[in-house]
């Protein structure tokens, strides 16, 4: 009887309850399958990790649909090359990139945190080596508090140590397709790599007839 009362008052959380998530929380990623697998898209107020084997493997093309819909500038912290205006314009990304370069990772993290707190950006992109659990938690808290969408682009991580990222994706360029593996997501289990058709945004690929 007492348990019933507690349940009615909403003081007991039941595991089998369906997580209802509001579509307002999500930003369309532009990819149907990715949206489905992430529960609706990129979560507003989240830090996401994109693991790439090599730079330029498709991580930026994956984000192109997101970057197109932004009303605010994009911050680039320590990218591996210059973001190129004509290419961004060609993909209908209109905000001029704001670039921050630092000599140390500590400064990069500080700059990222400051930028999150300013709430000035549509998306914050940072290229960083593996981050400590404490820093990820700190950034995630800031991103959630200020409702900012942050991507950390980093190398493939082989350990499975837990981090407070909302999503962790492993990106892979295969011979025929670009594949996204989900190592962590908010509304489900990890997922094996699936194809994400980023090639449709890029110059046509010709198969060489050998």
């Amino acid at each position, binding site marked *: 009887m007492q348990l019933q009362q507690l349940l009615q008052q909403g003081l007991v959380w039941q595991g089998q309850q369906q997580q209802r998530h509001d579509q*307002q929380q999500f930003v369309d990623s532009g990819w149907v399958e990715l949206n489905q697998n992430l529960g609706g898209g990129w979560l507003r107020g989240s830090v996401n990790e994109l693991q790439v*084997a*090599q*730079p*330029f*493997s*498709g*991580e*930026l*093309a994956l984000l*192109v649909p997101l970057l197109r819909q932004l*009303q*605010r*500038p994009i911050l680039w912290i320590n*990218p*591996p*090359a*210059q*973001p*190129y*205006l*004509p*290419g*961004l*314009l*060609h*993909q209908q990304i209109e905000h*001029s*990139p*704001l*670039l*921050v*370069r*630092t000599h140390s990772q500590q*400064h990069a993290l*500080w*700059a990222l945190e*400051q*930028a999150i*707190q*300013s*709430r*000035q950006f549509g998306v914050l992109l940072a290229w960083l080596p593996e981050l400590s659990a404490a820093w990820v938690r700190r950034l995630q808290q800031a991103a959630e508090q*200020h*409702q*900012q969408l942050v991507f950390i682009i980093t190398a493939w991580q082989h350990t499975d140590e837990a981090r407070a990222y909302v999503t962790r994706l492993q990106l892979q*360029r*295969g*011979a025929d397709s670009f594949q996204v593996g989900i190592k962590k997501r908010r509304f489900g289990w990890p997922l094996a790599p699936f194809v994400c058709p*980023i090639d449709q945004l*890029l*110059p*046509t*690929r*010709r198969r*060489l007839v050998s």
Partner: protein
Amino acid sequence: MNTWLYLHAPQLLLDTQLALQTPAQQQQPQVLLAGSRVGARQVVQYNQAAAAAGIALHMAEVTATTLVAELQLRPYQVAHEQSILEQLAQLWYQDIAHIALYPPQGLLFEVASVLRLYGGFQGLLQQLQQRLQEWPIRYVVASGDTPLRARLLAQAGQSLLSNDADSVQQAVAQLPISASGLEPVHITRLQQVGITTIGALQQRHRSALGKRFGRTMTEYLARLNGELPMPQQYYQPPAQFSQQLDLLAEVASWQQLLFPLRRLLQQLEAFLQVRQLSVRALLLQVKHRDGQHTEQVIRFAHPVWQLKDMLGLTQLQLERQQLDQPALELALQAQRLEPRQPHHGDLVQASSELAAPTQSLGELVSRLQARLGEQAVQIAQPQRDWRPQQVQQWQLWQAATATAMAMPQLPRPLWLLTTEQAIELQQWQLQWGPERLASGWWDDTPCQRDYYIAVDQQQRQGWIFHSEQGWFVHGWFT
């Protein structure tokens, strides 16, 4: 009705120096000495520790040093004291518009219009005192129905604040003739004839006094009664801000300079507030023992005027700096003053689902640049050029202007490598091309290249070109 207020700060220079010292240093007996010849100098200002040890005004240097062995001696510099007086006037100019300087230690305020605003003398004094929170100087304030009466009372140390003109006149009449401010010769002669107070002087016939002591005496009496308008040159704040501070002891790092800098920035804040200006750059100048100086420019990406903003950003910027030699003097100059822009809140953005910004982009960039260096924050700026590496230029955030770029007709990569990298063509599959880009023949970096889109062994789509030097990768599409 007493409409004049006179402030007399007899220890102005020493008090200002003490304010920059640590409490332990302030406990040391210290005096300022005036006089041309070493050995024949006299004590003109002394702190409380010196007074407790028996030092008195006008004591000879020899007597003072014999009395207190560990006494700190410094020369009295009238020019310095005068510049401090101007700083005080500037500080209070925020509250009172009519201030006349009586160098080196006095300020005269015309308070008829502000007395009602501050609710009488007490309210006015509180307001004046509030500005001095971090600048503890000792002073005497007296009111008067004429400027000269107020001044004589303050200089005699009588802090009489009253709306009643009669009580002021009585108090002045009782002052000894030695406090009259007349020339010493006149004072001696007056004392010889038995006139020992100002009141006694006023009872004499003016024409008789005039015959004996000349015109200065009649003028003096007329000014005392306010019959002659005092030639008042009211203080006009300078159009530029440039101030300096003596540090007294050598300071070895920028960190330690922050405390005196705070004082200067506080004055700057007052300066900017009066004029409704903001500042975009500061010049810090540190003078060293050998007469050399070090300069440090602090730039702000957005206009600032509040003490906390200026201090915070300066602190971030100075954290990265080293001071090569110890500093003796600190000077601050405001550069790039500009009128304040009204701040517009963006109603449209606030109502959408986006979280409203907590600070402007300029404020953020200022913070980032302060800690990371100015070059660390850049923005891409389109250029009218055909050469791929010249189409955009990275500029300091503050230098950027809104320029639109023509939409490229042909595919362009998302990434551009700062320097192109040589490649082995065998490892690439050509997919599209060539696009010939030949340009720049008019300057010293001509460019003639055939660009292709190609895929490397890891299946990454790149932008590669062929020129006389061979094959290179220049950008990436992914």
